């Protein structure tokens, strides 16, 4: 029954929306801005939703749009409310391989250093009369890669010199507070309701 499915879908979206909005409010984040940022995925999923609509399946189109929007809002909310080191520590606790966590952590920390170097190289090239040519772009990437590899070695030396190994100890240990348990329970309940009602099929 398509009408019943659509009602279930709307209820499911509303429930998920309420949980995310409550999380945003409890984190003292601007709710409207968080919700608006979720639409960043629209150009990608919008195309598939349009195709589904043209195929005569508006329920699937709506489902696609709402699922992708809610997922994007959840990601924006997570990034806005959780300091990165706690996010990384959480990922590590959830079983993501340590190597992967460390790689992401270092990439995040040193990305701005690489961009600053890229900018200095661009200015130096312009100062010597260089133009935007493919050969310059490729050689710039090669130089950046080589210098990043050298920096990686120096960072590793610094890590070892300070007694470090391969993971970062946390200054603020991870603990579950009542609000975390409440959020987890609400999220699980909402997921169970959606599965039972078949709303997000």
């Amino acid at each position, binding site marked *: 029954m398509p009408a019943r499915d659509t009602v279930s879908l709307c209820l499911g979206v509303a429930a998920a929306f309420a949980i995310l909005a409550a999380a945003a409010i409890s984190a003292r984040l601007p709710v409207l801005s968080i919700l608006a940022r979720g639409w960043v995925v629209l150009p990608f999923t919008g195309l598939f939703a349009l195709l589904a609509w043209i195929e005569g399946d508006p329920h699937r189109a709506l489902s696609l749009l709402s699922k992708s929007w809610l997922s994007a809002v959840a990601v924006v909310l997570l990034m806005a409310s959780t300091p990165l080191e706690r996010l990384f520590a959480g990922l590590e606790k959830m079983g993501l391989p340590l190597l992967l966590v460390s790689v992401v952590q270092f990439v995040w920390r040193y990305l701005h250093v690489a961009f600053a170097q890229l900018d200095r190289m661009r200015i130096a090239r312009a100062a010597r009369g260089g133009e935007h040519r493919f050969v310059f772009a490729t050689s710039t990437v090669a130089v950046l890669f080589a210098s990043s590899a050298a920096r990686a070695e120096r960072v590793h030396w610094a890590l070892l010199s300070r*007694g470090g190994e391969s993971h970062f*100890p946390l*200054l603020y240990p991870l603990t579950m507070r009542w609000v975390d348990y409440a959020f987890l329970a609400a999220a699980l309940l909402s997921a169970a309701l959606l599965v039972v009602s078949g709303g997000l099929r």
Partner: protein
Amino acid sequence: MSHHQPIIEVRGLRYRYEDGTEALCGVDFMVHRGERVSLLGANGSGKTTFLLHLNGILHGEGYIEVAGTELSKANLKQIRRKIGFLFQDPEDQLFLPTVLEDVAFAPLEQGCPVEEAKRRAMAALEWVGLASDAHRAPHRLSAGQRQRAALAGVLAAEPEILVLDEPTTHLDPPSRRSLLALLDSLPQTLLLVTHDVAFAARLTRRAVFFDHGRIVADGPIQTIVRESHWSLD
């Protein structure tokens, strides 16, 4: 422990790079507790390579003893607690998201409880004048502040020996002056690699001169600088 007891003793240290180039050709070196020594010499003469052997980052042939313990793979962690290493580019050293977390890194790695690590980190930051910047991201700091944050990270580990590799490279004169005052007030044994002769002469009395992987001169810094034609005049 006596001030006359060597805190670092190196005998016959040799090291080759992977391409076969000989970087250290039998270095003998000794420094006493509380002493400050400058390591001078041209680029590529082996100064930094030598320092990287003292805490086992590089492994050459020869004998190295730090604070009465012979360096070996089994006691690397123990030795690294005793030597605080300040690298040339603080960007390489500040790898955690905030200054406080970075400075607390070594105490936490040493097994300190969180509150004790935080207390040591804040004390070190206060000492370098960065307590109010504890929660800032390292890349938001100026070059001078970054250097001081990196120094705080080293001092929070409470090392017996400080090793500084070109600490003034990225600093303007006021930051250089403030670093000089900070270092001058420290009680630790200090090894300083630098091309900044004026800075070295203000901080240390003794210097050794590296040339092609060897120490070719060792003595009062003024004599070494004069005899090796290492001053600007």
